[in-house]
């Protein structure tokens, strides 16, 4: 099982420095997890490091392809508030 990174990644390098297995590299568009190297931090840390430092909700998926940091979990912005703000900005 391995973690993965999706396109909402902002390429901030934080996960690549935190990874104990050197499994994360800079891809063409965003950072990527080398599926062969990722150990999900087992044996190293209680929490998977990339998911614990990533500042972008939804950018990291766990081994079950579930979002590690769901909407609102990092920013504290309730998802419906975010949706409303986006709709308001688009209607300007």
């Amino acid at each position, binding site marked *: 099982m391995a973690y993965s990174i999706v396109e909402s990644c902002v390429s901030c390098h934080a996960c690549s*420095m935190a990874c104990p297995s050197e499994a994360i590299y800079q891809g063409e568009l965003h950072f990527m997890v080398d599926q062969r190297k990722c150990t999900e931090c087992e044996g190293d*840390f209680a929490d998977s490091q990339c998911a*614990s*430092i990533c*500042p972008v909700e939804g950018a990291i998926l766990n081994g079950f392809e579930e979002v590690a940091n769901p909407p609102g979990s*990092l*920013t504290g912005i309730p998802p419906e508030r975010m949706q409303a703000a986006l709709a308001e*900005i688009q209607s300007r």
Partner: protein
Amino acid sequence: MELTVLNETQVTEEGCSSGSCGSTDDQLTHLPEEIRQKVFNHPCYSEEAHHHFARMHVAVAPACNIQCHYCNRKYDCSNESRPGVVSELLTPDQAVKKVMAVAAEIPQMTVLGIAGPGDPLANPERTFSTFQQLTEKAPDIKLCVSTNGLSLPEHVDELCKHNIDHVTMTINCVDPEIGAKIYPWIFWNNRRIKGKKGAKILIEQQQKGLAMLVERGVLVKVNSVMIPGVNDKHLEEVSKIVKAKGAFLHNVMPLIAEAEHGTFYGVMGQRGPTNDELMELQDSCAGDMNMMRHCRQCRADAVGLLGEDRGDEFTMEKVELMDIDYDAAMVKRKVIHDAIEAQLKAKMDKPDEVLVTLGGLKQKDTRPVLMAIATSGGGVINQHFGHATEFLIYEASPTDVRFVSHRKVELYCAGNDDDGVPILQQIIKTLEGCEAVLCSKIGFEPWGMLEEAGIQPTGEHAMEPIEEAVTAVYKEMAESGKLDDMPADQQLATA
């Protein structure tokens, strides 16, 4: 600039909390020579220096170890001007090349800072590689770093190796209850720690780092973001504490929060402080602490004098094409630095000139007046009203002329006639509380509208040093009896 008060008792009677009510440079003159030498040409530490010397930031530090509610980790937005935003992330090698190119092209650039877009000390390899190369290749550039403080204690010794004289740390609170409302989480000891617990660790690390830097003789500037209803009342205490621990300068900045920035505060509708609220807090902290009032909250890749950004001239694409002879550039830089230094020294040697003129006032009890200044740098009035993107606000009183703040405006002469009047109305609103505008020139239409709003424009003092011109205008106002009355807006309020 030395605009120290002539008579402290008189000042106290007027309600100023202490003799330290002037702008930063009032205090610079009382500092030991050794510290003065460290700050006299640093635009972010000396109000006087920021008229003459430029700074730049290189964006080599993308990762961050905390989340702040006023920040969104999105980089590429060339229209936004606020900390944490950059257009182009650089490798240390690219950054070194860019710094040397800028230093050659803008010789008055004296300071290189690493301020993000994340936290420099959460990217130690990239940050220290940049510093190390610059220490070797460009020894005439001062290095400094701006951090949230979480990783500061573990890096203090490494920082000192690179001969860094200045560190800026953002401290928004010393109380974890308040901290939990500003920092949703930190990354610490390999875990994401949320809420009060995270805030408490951050605060402890900041205070520890501050003490360690002071112990090693590094000058520390503390930045605080003023968030109304969250930490505004608390910041006076922060100011007292960081001063007691040896911080050298406190910079209280207004929160920038717009929904379109996608930040917690922006989306949740948290407002920033008004100009008056900010000034009031800065004044109340000033009794205890040396305050900075000329900060422009620049981007993590800004280039040029404070208030201007010439970053577009130095994209990596352009820098790669430049052929820089740094040895030659250093010679030229030295000549220019010496000339500016001589100019500043001459000004320091005749410190009482402005006050002598103010001393000539017949009436000593006239009320203070705020004036707006259009300048493009050099400490003189040299900008057309319509070309100003910000105004410097000075306060003149019978005892003192001091810089109090800057206010950003939209460019009036943007070339589109339809936009002119609404922009002008907005500028007038921004300049609320000012009674005069000093600029090099001004058009007929804005002149009339400003006058109608109770703000007297004048182009008579073009190319004069700011303090001298402000003094002259204040004297004129006093002598014409204008200061016997309340300002126009207050008359309306009491009518």
